[in-house]
């Protein structure tokens, strides 16, 4: 099949006739020139921000969208520039990307694989988006990443923590800045040992879906390596709202640590239930009973209220990082400042990851000198950078995962204000959370080759 131009009133806008072959439809027919999907033709370039706007993660999605808008502003030279000034790569100058003004479209993933793909498809097919970013769950990330691979656009993952995203479901066109379950486990293990000792018995409650399973596997492996024993791994239905019947047997099971592999509303409810049952005041095996929530977010802490006090978990980033841990984490304050000025509250880790991903994409395009996804992939692979708030970071070429320090946090006992919910306990350095590309927890998939589409 071929693209054709058909002039009726003698007005010929573009003069391209070229084979499209096995291609997604291209709205901008010049795409065929360039040999890749949605090549920007005019003076703008369109990015697609696909975030949950309805459903339980809607607030997180809105925070991601705010960060995207901020990033677009900074790329276009508006506002205070945020992390552009601290970013180690200096090719971005506030004139958009390669001189093209950055525009964006947004959509709703609804935190459903199907809906997220439909939304991403409409961005690619209708709006001519050349990069898709965002999302707040791993199922969605994997599904949209697969779509972008097939369509020939770049996917810059938002919040996705499952090992699979850059493990068995990794794709050449997809990149993840956020950390993953293995890294959480590796970062938490030494802290847990230090806080609770080597002789502990853990009881896992796990949300019964892909992300829950990989986190359970990672945490169990890391804690067992410390000498902890895993008493039981219990799967809880995703749709559960009341976890009492899963929490009730914990205390009598011989366990003295409860690991909650839950996220979002599930985690808020299970933690609230656990605290209701008084687990935190109990003694088991002669020790204080403890609760661990391996993946933590500000919004979850907010939802759990004072139940979060004293609960240990891990984060990709925290807005207090630079203030408390020094200028290794440069960029943090610049970002918090410009986000806070605009929206009136500090950004979440989801916002930071989305902001950083947008800048990283823009930077890679500029360095590559092309919007061609394959050129971008090449520019991002094994790219080392600094100044985006996480300290020195490597985008590993073997699996498109970022490697950087992981933050271990704890819920504050007496928060001073509504933003000050967690305290940073420890920052686990990069080399402790790094794993080989062929680690068994990440095996089973292949990047494949980059797909430029048309």
């Amino acid at each position, binding site marked *: 099949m071929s693209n054709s131009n058909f002039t009726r009133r003698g007005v010929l806008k573009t003069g391209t006739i070229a084979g499209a072959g096995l291609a997604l439809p291209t*709205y901008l027919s010049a795409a065929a020139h360039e040999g890749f999907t949605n090549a920007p033709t005019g003076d703008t370039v369109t990015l697609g921000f696909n975030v949950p706007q309805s459903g339980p993660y809607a607030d997180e999605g809105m925070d991601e*969208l705010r960060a995207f808008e901020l990033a677009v502003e900074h790329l276009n030279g508006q506002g205070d520039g945020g992390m552009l000034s601290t970013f180690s790569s200096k090719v971005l100058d506030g004139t958009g990307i390669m001189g093209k003004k950055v525009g964006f479209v947004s959509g709703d993933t609804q935190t459903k*694989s199907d809906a997220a793909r439909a939304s991403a498809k409409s961005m690619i097919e209708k709006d001519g988006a050349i990069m898709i970013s965002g999302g707040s769950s791993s199922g969605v990330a994997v599904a949209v990443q*697969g779509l972008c691979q*097939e369509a020939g656009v770049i996917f810059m993952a938002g919040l996705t923590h499952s090992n699979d995203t850059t493990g068995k479901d990794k794709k050449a066109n997809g990149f993840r800045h956020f950390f993953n379950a293995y890294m959480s486990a590796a970062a938490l293990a030494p802290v847990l040992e230090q806080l609770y000792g080597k002789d502990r018995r853990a009881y896992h409650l796990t949300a*019964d879906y892909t992300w829950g399973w990989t986190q359970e596997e990672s945490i169990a492996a890391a804690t067992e390596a410390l000498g902890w024993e895993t008493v039981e791994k219990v799967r809880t239905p995703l749709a559960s709202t009341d976890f009492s019947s899963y929490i009730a047997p914990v205390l009598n099971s011989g366990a003295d640590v409860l690991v909650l592999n839950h996220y979002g509303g599930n985690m808020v409810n299970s933690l609230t239930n656990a605290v209701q049952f008084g687990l935190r005041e109990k003694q088991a095996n002669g020790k204080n009973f403890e609760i661990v929530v391996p993946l933590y977010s500000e919004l979850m802490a907010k939802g759990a209220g004072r139940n979060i006090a004293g609960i240990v978990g891990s984060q990709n980033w925290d807005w207090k990082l630079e203030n408390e841990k020094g200028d290794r984490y440069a960029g943090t304050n610049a970002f918090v400042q410009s986000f806070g000025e605009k929206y009136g509250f500090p950004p979440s880790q989801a916002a930071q990851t989305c902001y950083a991903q947008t800048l990283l994409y823009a930077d890679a395009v500029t360095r590559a000198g092309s919007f061609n996804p394959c050129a971008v992939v090449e520019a991002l692979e094994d790219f080392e950078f600094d100044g985006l708030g996480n300290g020195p970071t490597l985008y590993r070429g073997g699996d498109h995962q970022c490697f950087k320090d992981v933050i271990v946090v704890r819920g504050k006992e007496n928060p001073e204000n509504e933003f000050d919910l967690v305290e940073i306990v420890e920052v686990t350095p990069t080399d402790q959370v790094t794993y080989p590309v062929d680690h068994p927890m990440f095996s089973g998939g292949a990047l494949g080759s980059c797909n430029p589409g048309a």
Partner: protein
Amino acid sequence: MLGLTKKDFTMFIVVIVMVALAPFLLNPFPQGSSLAQMFNAGYPDLMQRFVIFGILVIGFNILFGLTGYLSFGHAAFLGVGSYSAVWMFKLLGMNVIPGILLSMVVAGIFALAIGYVSLRRSGIYFSILTLAFAQMSYNLAYSVLGNPASNFNLTNGETGLQLLLTDPRILGQSTTPDGSLPVTNFFGIAMRDSYDLRMGDWLFTFNAGYYLCGVIMLISFYISIRIFRSPFGMMLRAVKSNQQRMNYTGLNTKPYTLAAFVISGIYAGLAGGLLSSMDPLAGAERMHWTASGEIVIMAILGGVGTLIGPILGAGFNEYFKNILSKINDSVLHQWLGFLPDGIEDFLVTIIHPFVGKGWHLTLGLLFMIVIIFLPGGLVQGGQKLGRKISGRSRRDAAKAAEQSKSAAE
């Protein structure tokens, strides 16, 4: 013609023309204009959805519209069909026909089993039975049947069943020479192939997958017309009207309702198979009760028991869902940019809660408005409108006649 009455045939022709010309009809605004960005719907994914959900609701209407049995678990068949088709692409090859056929067969078997049990009850008890079966399927697909670590990973859980480079595909290739996944095709025509037609500022996209779905939708629609007009269809309406009389007229209602249930299940399976053929990933959310509820909503929105209603209802729902969720503040500002700043900001503030993250709110309000004011759905709305227009033109004609008469005098 084609065994249809003249009226039905005319309607069928109108639908054929609409399906064939959809790429034009759905892209009324020139490419690149701000209205196009929001209101144009002529891109392949959405056009495919229009016709696929059309098939789904046409099938649902055969059950609900004719027999009055309200199934609240129809999404299960959609999901089962989707999974079957993807499995076919994984195991056999990327031609869509085996996948579509299998999805119909499997959904039919599923419908036979669920229908056989559920049709022992009627009314809301039937609805709850179908709901219970569908929710069971959903919950199992999401968790137990979808654990990648187990040997029995039928559905791949939350992520959804997807193609892998390592799939066998015994009649095709596991991987294309350049290392990517092969694409779904119909005897070599890739489903995502498109033909772009540029006319001045306008751009129209003709997508292979859309036309395949469109043809299948037309066949499904034709079959549904035939069923509506057949003795079988009359029996189904009789079931809805008076089951007691059916029984005392020597007719066994169970096989009639079961046949209707299975037919509509096959339609749903077909829709699922087509969804997977257009985009080979099947997610468990397709089976969630809200998805079943959406099918009911589409049917009632369009007009229950009417022939054309399901297509209108499906189109209405999909269109607003896709369009509303993509409007954000910067788009609003772009639209209303011609207004003075104060008024622009004010209007944006007013509209803001109803678009983007608020699209559910708008859709909910639209449902309520339609259902309150148009009990017969959009079809009734169309009839009312038609009557008003024809009424006015008749009045106008009468007036004109009178005037010419008085002028003659």
